[in-house]
């Protein structure tokens, strides 16, 4: 069964350092999402891509966070500089373009970030 791949699974960094997370969606899925899940809370959308275009980044802290999906396939989320409050699970999800399955999102296992 196809899965959303994310790496690394765990990342420990010191504050003010740069970190990057990678996501490879299920093949053929046009829409890609990055979520942040703080411990004890539900995931919150950071950015949504349709192919290579950003369609929603209203909750992305753009002074330190950036996301790209250059060829409309895999994606990278970067934080620079990292702050203590960025410690969280970062989840990637993808969904297909078909009408019936458009709003079903398939999630990767996530990257757990700890900022010291």
């Amino acid at each position, binding site marked *: 069964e196809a899965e959303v791949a994310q790496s690394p699974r765990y990342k420990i960094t010191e504050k003010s350092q740069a970190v990057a997370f990678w996501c490879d969606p299920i093949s053929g899925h046009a829409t890609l999402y990055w979520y942040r899940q703080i411990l004890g809370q*539900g995931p919150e959308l950071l950015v949504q891509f349709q192919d290579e275009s950003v369609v*929603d980044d209203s909750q992305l802290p753009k002074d330190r966070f950036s996301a790209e999906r250059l060829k409309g396939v895999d994606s990278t989320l970067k934080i620079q500089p990292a702050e203590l409050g960025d410690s969280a699970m970062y*989840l990637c999800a993808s969904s297909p373009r078909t009408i019936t399955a458009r*709003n*079903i*999102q*398939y*999630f990767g296992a996530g990257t757990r970030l700890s900022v010291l």
Partner: protein
Amino acid sequence: AQSVTQLDSHVSVSEGTPVLLRCNYSSSYSPSLFWYVQHPNKGLQLLLKYTSAATLVKGINGFEAEFKKSETSFHLTKPSAHMSDAAEYFCVVESYNTDKLIFGTGTRLQVFP
């Protein structure tokens, strides 16, 4: 704006007994509602989805949920809990006219032998 409220942060049941995880929604239109499950160190997995067809929705692993418009509820149930059901469960509503999912705060289900 759409939102969901999960009424219990923790639920504990014995193996073989029924499971009830409660969720209320707020929406000015007929919403799309979901339940997702998150096992430790794994990604979220879709359990079931409601999109204005049958009000009783059957999902995977024996779970089902009933959409009750009069009560604005979408509670998740299972007749008999299994140890493998221990996980975090999220009630989710789709934002109107977009693909954006809005998650509840989650309910941690513990299953005791």
